[in-house]
């Protein structure tokens, strides 16, 4: 089989690129290393854990359902409370990881139900509910911090990912402006609660 000129040129380019790859060295262009690795692992931590993901989206949806000022107070205060939870994880205080995992699973159940039932609570009540769950989520993220390639970049990653998940939730919650959208939101709430129940069951199975 004869190669066309174009194909031969492409093969030659890949060959040259391959040869250069064999001589790859570390760039070491800046004193701060591991930023990319830390950032990516931080960004992925809340996204790849389904329990974190659904709970964070639920916070955003519930904030949108409650309207002003909860729509912006909850997402603004949540990262800071979550960081305080991260400090608890860092401090190595003897808080059972089982308790934290159950807290995270229950956050999905509770927030899912609040969204599905469209429950309205006073702002301080919403802040307490979200704050307690924020501590649990933060604890789980914070416990991973010392093992990160670059702890600062990891922190940036998981805070930004959490904030963006809230934003997704708020955008979903804004569907309430449409009659069909309201149903979609309530069904989403039910799904989140069901997933949460699944996480609780899995935790119970692991425990016994």
């Amino acid at each position: 089989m004869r190669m066309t000129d174009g194909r031969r040129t492409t093969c030659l380019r890949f060959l040259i690129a391959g040869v250069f790859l064999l001589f790859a060295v570390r760039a070491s262009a800046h004193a701060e290393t591991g930023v990319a690795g830390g950032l990516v692992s931080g960004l992925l931590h809340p996204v790849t854990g389904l329990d974190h993901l659904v709970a964070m989206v639920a916070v955003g949806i519930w904030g949108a359902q409650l309207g002003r000022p909860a729509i912006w107070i909850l997402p603004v205060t949540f990262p800071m409370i979550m960081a305080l939870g991260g400090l608890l994880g860092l401090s190595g205080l003897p808080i059972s990881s089982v308790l934290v995992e159950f807290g995270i699973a229950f956050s999905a159940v509770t927030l899912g139900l609040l969204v599905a039932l469209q429950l309205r609570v006073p702002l301080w009540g919403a802040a307490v509910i979200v704050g307690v769950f924020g501590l649990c989520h933060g604890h789980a993220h914070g416990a991973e911090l010392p093992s990160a390639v670059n702890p600062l970049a990891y922190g940036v990653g998981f805070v930004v990912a959490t904030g963006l998940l809230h934003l997704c939730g708020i955008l979903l919650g804004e569907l309430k402006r449409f009659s069909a959208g309201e149903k979609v939101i309530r069904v989403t709430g039910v799904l989140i609660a069901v997933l949460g129940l699944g996480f609780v069951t899995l935790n119970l199975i692991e425990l016994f």
Partner: protein
Amino acid sequence: MTKLRPIIWIACLALLPQTALAHLVSTRFGEFYSGMLHPVTTLLHLLSWLAIALLCGIQQQGYSKWALLLFPGATLFGALIGSWFLHPEWIHLVNIASFLVGLLVALALRLNPAAFIALLLVFGFSHGFANGEPGLRGSEFVLYVSGVAAAAYLLMTLISAATRLTVTQAPWGIVAVRAAGSWIMAVGILHIGFTLMIPAGLE
């Protein structure tokens, strides 16, 4: 013979190899750009400067203009001093404390002028000091510290202008700025905790 001539020339040149120094990694873009890149490629400085610029964008316009001069000036002074002295540990602690500016942004606080100026001068100096480069002398030193000050000026001008525009033009602007402040504060809480709680070497 004519055909052989270029080959002989190439062979002669090949016998006289020199280091090319043509790559930007080894030239480091020159000391001015090295100075500019040093703070903006270090998350500790970048995030704190972002918080200060966001705070500047939500202050009264008369006061926020001062920041464009005072912050780069303090950074330049800090970089000059920091290039001549050893970096004490407290400078690092002051720098990580500058994450707390994120809380002021999250609260959308308008500071009184004296407090705002003090904040600009203290954090400008401490971040400039940490960016000092002791190994440089002469024109390289001047270029480097000018680069650090230019980075402070550019970042402060662009981000504070963008913040003011967002806050005044978009109905969601102030919420976005407050959220950005809370994110920086959250990262700061974690970094302060990590620095104080985890002994070096155990991470």
